[in-house]
């Protein structure tokens, strides 16, 4: 192992180069934008850099694990996550009016974050188990597996995370071939339960929905975010105002500008051209994800890869949609760009699984 070239090959054995380049380009874009969003605060940028390195390390680790092993821990991970969620409900820490964190003495964890990956893993595993004899009852069980954590997280309350997990689970159902009739039926039931959901929602969640319908109604309160971010994006024009020259950003009109609303900073400073390039980058990464999914060897790998890729897309769409004012403000970060370590780790963990699927020898060819 003294030959550096051989070491390099050894280390990158299970890394999908195509995907890695795409991810690194997105992350670099993130750092550049963050530098401007934090008013040139190097220590925050460094911090984020460290977050990224940690997340990349985790991605590398996961990529090196053969899928059979990951499959084996799907159920234990899911069970642990579910138990932790129950613990959160019983004795979680209240922060910001929501009970999301669990204090383990040594460290605090947010079990809902774990569920983002555990739920699709579990469902994919379940369907893989019952692959040969898939019946309607199995869909029922799988839906239950999905709804349990979703309801627990909804109660915390954390609407954003609950919806994302629900989406990731739905993708698994969709990809297994859930019949269209049932989906249409579910959609009708869903629409019918809106009044019920509305009554279950917390005040701040209702306000967000109302704000979406008419942001100007509450211009200094909940609508402020959307108004300021659309002004930032619109005033950016085709070419943008230039890096570090966004007035909305630097005169402090933009809220949450390094986390959930970082896209407004990017868009104000780099304009339509920047937006298009960013979308293109995302399309490339998602495209690679779809390619890996299409060529995945087993039911389990297909489902998990598809769910991860589609969830990644969902993050992007929900975040951008909220920043440009077509979706309500839910706390969803822009993947690989927003400041924050947790979502970075969750994202790259997912990509680690994709890489593992792509690069490990496909023993079971179908």
């Amino acid at each position, binding site marked *: 192992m003294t030959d550096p070239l051989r070491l390099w090959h050894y280390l990158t054995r299970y890394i999908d180069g195509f995907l890695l380049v795409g991810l690194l380009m997105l992350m670099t874009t993130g750092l550049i934008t963050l530098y401007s969003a*934090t*008013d*040139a*605060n*190097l*220590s*925050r940028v460094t911090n984020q850099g460290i977050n990224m390195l940690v997340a990349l390390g985790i991605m590398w680790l996961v990529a090196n694990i053969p899928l059979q092993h990951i499959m084996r821990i799907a159920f234990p991970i899911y069970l642990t996550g579910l138990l932790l969620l129950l613990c959160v409900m019983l004795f979680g820490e209240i922060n*910001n009016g929501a009970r999301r964190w669990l204090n383990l003495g040594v460290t605090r964890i947010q079990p809902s974050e774990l569920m983002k990956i555990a739920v699709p893993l579990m469902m994919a595993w379940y369907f893989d188990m019952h692959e*040969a004899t898939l019946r309607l009852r199995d869909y029922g069980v799988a839906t239950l597996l999905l709804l349990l954590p979703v309801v627990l997280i909804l109660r915390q309350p954390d609407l954003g995370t609950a919806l994302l997990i629900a989406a990731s689970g739905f*993708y698994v159902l*969709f*990809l297994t*071939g859930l019949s269209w009739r049932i989906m249409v039926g579910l959609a009708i039931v869903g629409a019918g339960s809106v009044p019920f959901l509305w009554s279950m929602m917390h005040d701040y969640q209702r306000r967000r929905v109302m704000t979406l319908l008419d942001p100007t109604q509450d211009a200094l309160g909940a609508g402020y975010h959307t108004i300021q971010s*659309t*002004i*930032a*994006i*619109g*005033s*950016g*024009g*085709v070419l943008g105002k230039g890096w570090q020259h966004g*007035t*909305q950003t*630097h*005169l*402090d*009109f933009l809220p949450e500008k390094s986390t959930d609303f970082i896209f407004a900073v990017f*868009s104000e400073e780099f*304009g*339509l051209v920047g*937006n*298009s390039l960013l*979308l293109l980058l*995302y*399309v490339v990464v*998602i495209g690679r994800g*779809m390619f890996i*999914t*299409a060529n995945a060897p087993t*039911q389990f790998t*297909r489902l998990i890869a*598809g769910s991860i890729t*589609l969830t990644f*897309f969902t993050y992007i*769409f929900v975040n*951008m*949609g909220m920043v*440009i004012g*077509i979706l309500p403000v839910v706390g969803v970060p822009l993947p690989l760009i927003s400041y924050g370590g947790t979502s970075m780790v969750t994202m790259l963990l997912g990509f680690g699984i994709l890489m593992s699927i792509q690069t490990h020898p496909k023993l079971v060819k*179908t």
Partner: protein
Amino acid sequence: MNRRVELRNHLRELHYFRIRLAISAGFMLLLFLLLFTRFFYLQVSQREHYHTLAEANRISIAPIVPNRGLIFDRNGEVLAHNYSAYTLEIIPSKVPDLEALINELSTIVEIAPRDRKRFKKLRDESKRFESLPIRTRLTDVEVARFAANRYRFPGVEIKARLFRQYPRGESASHVVGYIGRINDKDLEQLEARHDLANYRGSLYMGKIGLEQSYEKELHGITGFEEMETDAAGRVIRIISRTPPIPGNNLMLSLDAKLQEVAEKAFGDRRGALVAIEPDTGDILAFVSKPGFDPNLFVDGIDSENWDLLNNSIDRPLNNRALRGMYPPGSTFKPFMALAGLELNKRNAQQGISDPGYFSLPGSTHRFRDWKAGGHGYVDLHQSLVVSCDTYYYALANDLGIDNIASFTGKFGLGKKTGIDIEGEVMGLMPTQEWKMKRHKQKWYAGDTISVGIGQGYNLATPLQLAFATAILAGKGTAFRPHLVKQIKNNSNEILREIATEPLYTLDLNPAHLEAVKNALIDVTRPGGTAAVAAAGAAYAFAGKTGTSQVVGVKQGEKYMESKVQERHRDHALFIAYAPAKNPKIALSVLVENGGHGGATAAPIARLVMDYFLLGILPKESEAKTADPAGDDEEAVHD
């Protein structure tokens, strides 16, 4: 199902799967197209509209920082206040060549290397758009000189700012603490407690001591000014103004004069002293020596001074009274004696014949008394007066460690006292369970023996010892020790009194208490270990000397040979209260490497009590020296 059919099924399923995947892909592209359409709509079709809006986004809100609350001692003596001064500030982002600009500036106002270093440090820590001070506290002459040359320095401004000052300097520095510039870590903390909005515009916050612990009271509520600005950000008119609410003032229980007397009494020695009023829990003096000048920290300390303080072998930044853990030595004995009486293991009349050592039954190992040959016949009273070790070796063995721990725990040993300053440590009162957890070893009978004379695993802070002494002095009633007595608003109206209700009262037999207290009075009389220090006092006082062994010197610390010798000497301790019958003050004194408690710690206590009870200021000569050749008290045991 035969193999072929299954295979076909698989292929069919794969086919279905790929169809579903293709549908998803189409769906995603569609939604991305939707995003793009919206971008196009906002950034091309509506660009003019939003451009106008962005340009008109000129109502800016500027925070008005409230004046920080002041800190007074119990008599209204100022410990921390604010004064207004001019600073010369630079906005780095507006200056192309900082180095050249600063050089140019230094021809007009004096800029010391220290100022440059500090400025550099500030720049690394702050945002590009922030205005940073290169010089603080400009003289009138300097202000005038800069004003005349102002046109030469775009991006440089003179600003009037409020500065924090600690007029008493080193005195009570550990109590008052200091403020410093808000850094990233502070910001995260503020964010966590949802205080970020209130700190918009604030540059400083409390970092340690009361400045930190009472940050919420002292900071005040930030006001706001809504203003209309032009395209370049200049203010055209003020639309509305919400004035800030100044921070609240702290009125301490501390007596600054007493504090100073106590600090002077230490001379150059290292150590700590905590004095408490037993009837209220008011902390009268809280000394940790050496101290530091908190004024150094206010504008950001320069690296030279920081290294000096941080790397000093004397560790001046360490709050010994609050965080220093020391073996309590023989000051532990009064509590042991009381435990013996209360738990019916001893009575006051019972005595032992002290051969000068104690051995556990069935063991030849000798725990030696400090006095070779022993003290002869010793009863409870005598055991405290002459500080007999053998008596307490035997008593400890009879009580057992868990009884000792739970009884002395009632006096606050091994627990936090709940003082109103952050960073308190628990000390250590060992139990069998503790040793198993910490050392993965069972508790041996021998471990208990040395605990009995305060020389085993047990460790206490000077604050804990003072707290325990105050409970003893107050006949078993405990008050939460506190440094702040009242919180007042800016107009000096009392907002809050720190509660002086008792925490709890111990159910102690008055006769037992009396027996121990009488012995403690005799400690300060001829024949007692603190007789020399107490000689000629105009009031009766009760006390107990202690000497605690320095267990070892940490490896890897660099210091001079002569210092090493000094640092191997024992720590001197003394706890006391006075007047003995109706105590007004209870205190603990610790002198690091001071040798014997009666010789170095007790005289300090005497000076403090003389001043507090009689108003006698120590003579200069007294304050500096304490007789090193005092009476012997305790020897090494093994």
